[in-house]
Every structure is written in C-alpha cells, then in structure tokens.
C-alpha cells in the first residue's frame, strides 16, 4: 500500500473535474458552498478582493479557520500558502488539508524559488499564465494547474488570456518537428521531458482549472468552452448580492456549459455580481499574476 503517489495526487484533481471550487472564509460560507454543489472549498482568511483592498502582507490563513472549515464540510478542503514558503506548506500538510494552492494571491515569500512539491504527500495546485509556466510548476511537483487570471477583480479577461496562451502553447508544440523541441522548451522555459510529453500526447499533463476573475455563470461556461476542466470562484460568490444564488448558478453553468438555454435560465435574477475592476485601472505593482515566474 502506497500513499502520496503521483497517481493519488493527480487523481484527486481528476475527481474535481467539471466542478466549482469556491473561496470561503467561514464555516458558514463553506456550508453554503457545499449545499450549492461546490466540489471543494478553498479555506482563506480573506477573499482576494478583500486582500487587494487591505494591502499589506497576505499570509497563510490561521489554522483555526482552516480546521473549523475542515470540520464543517465533507468535500475536499484546500488552503493557500505563499509562493516559496515551504514551511507554510508543511503546516498545511500537518493540518491535513486535501490540496495546497501555492498562490500568487498571497504575498510571495521567495521571489526566485517555488516550493519543491515532490517532497510532500499532499498534492499542490499552482497558477500559470502560459504553457511554460505550467510545465515548470508540474516539474516541481504540482499535480493540478489553474490559470492565474487576475484574482479579486471580477474581470475574466486575464483568465481568458492565460487559457488561450496555454492552448496555443500546446498547439505550437504539437505542430513541431522533434528536432525543434529542445529550442522550444528552452524558449518557453519548460522541462524538456514534459514538453516532449505534451508534444506526443497533444494533451496537458494534469487537470487544468480556470481561476482569477470568474464572477458569473457565463464566465464559468466560457472558461469551460475554452477547454478548462473546472473553475475556481474566489470573490465572485461571497462578494455578490446573492451568494447562494450565484453559487448554485455557477455550479449548474459549469456542468451544462455547452447548453446556452440552461446558462440563460440560471443567469436570471441573480442581482448584482461583484463589482469588477478594469485591469487598466491597476498599476503594474498591483497585478497578482506577475508574482512567481
């Protein structure tokens, strides 16, 4: 009997496919998310929109918050550690969380190095802006990937950009002669072996979710039609006028993402979604997606 293997780490991500992972800050939120049909929750002290507003250093959540949420729901509980903060990761593993998100939403602890994730029994999900970044994280042991998008903005534009960039990266690799593989891997900064695998299978090596800016059922379905395996919704649920309604609607739109009639039906009467931010209003140092490499 073996634990903490690649198969069980990436396998849990496979169980999450077609589902919605919601940011929650209290057990009450977690219960609402589970009732609405979330396939997992992300336990946080503050949702990204509030992290953005508060400024200062954003760190791993208080273990008390995480433990109370773990005691409340039966679905998997994820939690975030800072980029490169392997001790926060050790703490989260000791708490027994089901997945760790090494996340740019928190203030990075290391500007050059991400956590070496192969050393952990608990699986990791990491953000990416393009195929090279995704493959670097997988090389370090991430068993699941998500687009970074731009968290806490309620603006889908960056998530779309990042997903298209991943898809184009795969398409490029597939069209290449094997003699061109080495130069391409070098150019995008991807481990050669993983680049070779993508070229041969034509598929992304792990489960890939969308994150960062999803605020409506149509946003979720858009990301699914662009080829994501599922979605993370951060501030979009609990910063909206009707969290329960929007949570349920996003779950349904994610399952029935190819059925515009259902998406129309679930989009009716949801009240105000979260207020969004135009990316042009953000200064370069306010962008979260550029954290990590």
């Amino acid at each position, binding site marked *: 009997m073996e634990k903490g293997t690649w198969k069980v780490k990436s396998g*849990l991500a496979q169980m999450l496919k077609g589902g919605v992972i919601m940011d929650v800050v209290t057990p009450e939120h977690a219960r609402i998310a589970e009732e609405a049909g979330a396939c997992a929750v992300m336990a946080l002290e503050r949702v990204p929109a509030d992290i953005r507003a508060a400024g200062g250093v954003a760190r791993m959540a208080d273990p008390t918050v995480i433990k109370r949420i773990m005691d409340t729901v*039966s679905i998997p509980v994820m939690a975030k550690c800072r980029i490169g903060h392997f001790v926060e990761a050790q703490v989260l593993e000791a708490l027994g969380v089901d997945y760790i998100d090494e996340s740019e939403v928190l203030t990075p602890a290391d500007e050059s190095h991400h956590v070496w994730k192969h050393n952990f029994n608990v699986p990791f999900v990491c953000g990416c802006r393009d195929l090279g970044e995704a493959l670097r994280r997988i090389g370090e042991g991430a068993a699941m990937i998500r687009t970074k998008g731009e968290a806490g903005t309620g603006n889908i534009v960056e998530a779309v950009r990042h997903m298209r960039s991943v898809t184009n990266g795969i398409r490029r690799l597939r069209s290449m002669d094997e003699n061109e593989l080495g130069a391409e891997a070098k150019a995008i900064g991807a481990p050669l072996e993983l680049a070779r695998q993508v070229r041969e299978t034509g598929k992304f090596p792990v489960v890939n979710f969308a994150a960062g800016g999803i605020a409506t059922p149509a946003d979720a379905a858009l990301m699914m039609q662009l080829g994501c395996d599922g979605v993370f919704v951060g501030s979009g649920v609990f910063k909206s006028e009707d969290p329960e309604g929007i949570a349920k609607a996003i779950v349904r739109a994610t*399952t029935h993402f190819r059925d515009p009639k259902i998406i129309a039906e679930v989009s009716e009467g949801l009240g105000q979604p979260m207020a969004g931010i135009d990316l042009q209003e953000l200064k370069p140092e306010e962008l979260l997606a550029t954290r990590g490499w």
Partner: protein
Amino acid sequence: MTIVGVLALQGDFAEHVALLRRLGAETREVRLPSDVTGIHGLVLPGGETTTISRLIDQYGLRDPILSMAREGAPLWGTCAGLIAMARKTEGRDDPVLGLMDIDIERNAYGRQVDSFETEIDVPALGEARFHAIFIRAPRIQRTGPEVEILARLEDGTAVAVRQGALLGTSFHPELTEDPRFHAYFLRTVKEREHSSRVAAG
C-alpha cells in the same frame, strides 16, 4: 448497437468514456433526463457525492435512473458513484439512489494524505492482480445477503461488490490503463440487452 451512458454531471466521467471507447463501446454523456432514453447501462463516475446528488435532483435525473435500474439495466458506480448507489451512507439522511444493499462510510480511510494505491485480487477478472487506486475513498461497512463480494483488501474490507446487474467499486479502475473492469461491465450490459431483446421477441 449497445450504448453505455456515463453520468457527466461532475467528476472523472471523461476517463470512463475513454476506457469504454477503447473497448469499442458506444458511449453517451448523460446530463439531462432525455439523455437516459435509449442507453443500455450507466456508469456513475468518481467525483463529489454532494455535487453529483444535487445536480441529479435539480435536473430530474433520479426517476429515469431508478426506472432504468428497475428494468434490470446494469449500473456501475465508482467511489462517489458507489456512494450514490448505496442504500445507507453514514451521515446522510437519505440515500442518493439507494439501489444496493450496502452501508457506506464516507472518507473512511482518512483525508487526501491517506489516499493510497495497492494491488488486489479480483477472481472474476482472472489471475492477474488489479491495481486499485483509492482517493478519499468510501468504505463498504456492511453488505446484504444478495450482495456478492468481488474483491477485498488484505484486512478483509470489501472494495468491489455486485448485486444482480449492479456493480460497485470503492476505487477507480478508470484511472488505470487496465480495462478489465470496464470489459466486465460491458459484458453485463451486452448480456442484459441481448436477453431483454430475446424476451421482447
């Protein structure tokens, strides 16, 4: 042509579809009641039980699936799908479908860090051992008199069960490259379909 449905509300349905297709089966993703019409068997995949059960109810899939089972069509649940098929699940007031005479404890082996893989003997599939992947797996606590146990862990816990045309596994054959469980299910589907066609004359 025999059509095998795969419940595609949430979870690893695409992995089931891929393995069934590799075996030459025609498959259909089932999301709405109309998708149930004309399928001869149904796979309930791994995923999150709460999510899947909510979506079953919201889109009225419970009755069509139950009537399929009543007519003797084969159903196979893996992990979350097995929980959905059980008559009783600890911590849940009502069963999702309640078809199999088994009691289930959810996440009984622990959280994700306790997920594991191991080799098991499954005599119905032949001599070679089967590589079984358990992810936040449910434990079968009790099996009724009509339930046949197809495989156990070394400590004796049942992990693959059959009751008539109903099949259940607490692990994930769809995450392996070994198609024997899918072939076994496909055989059951084809046999049932053939005998019901003969009976209809």
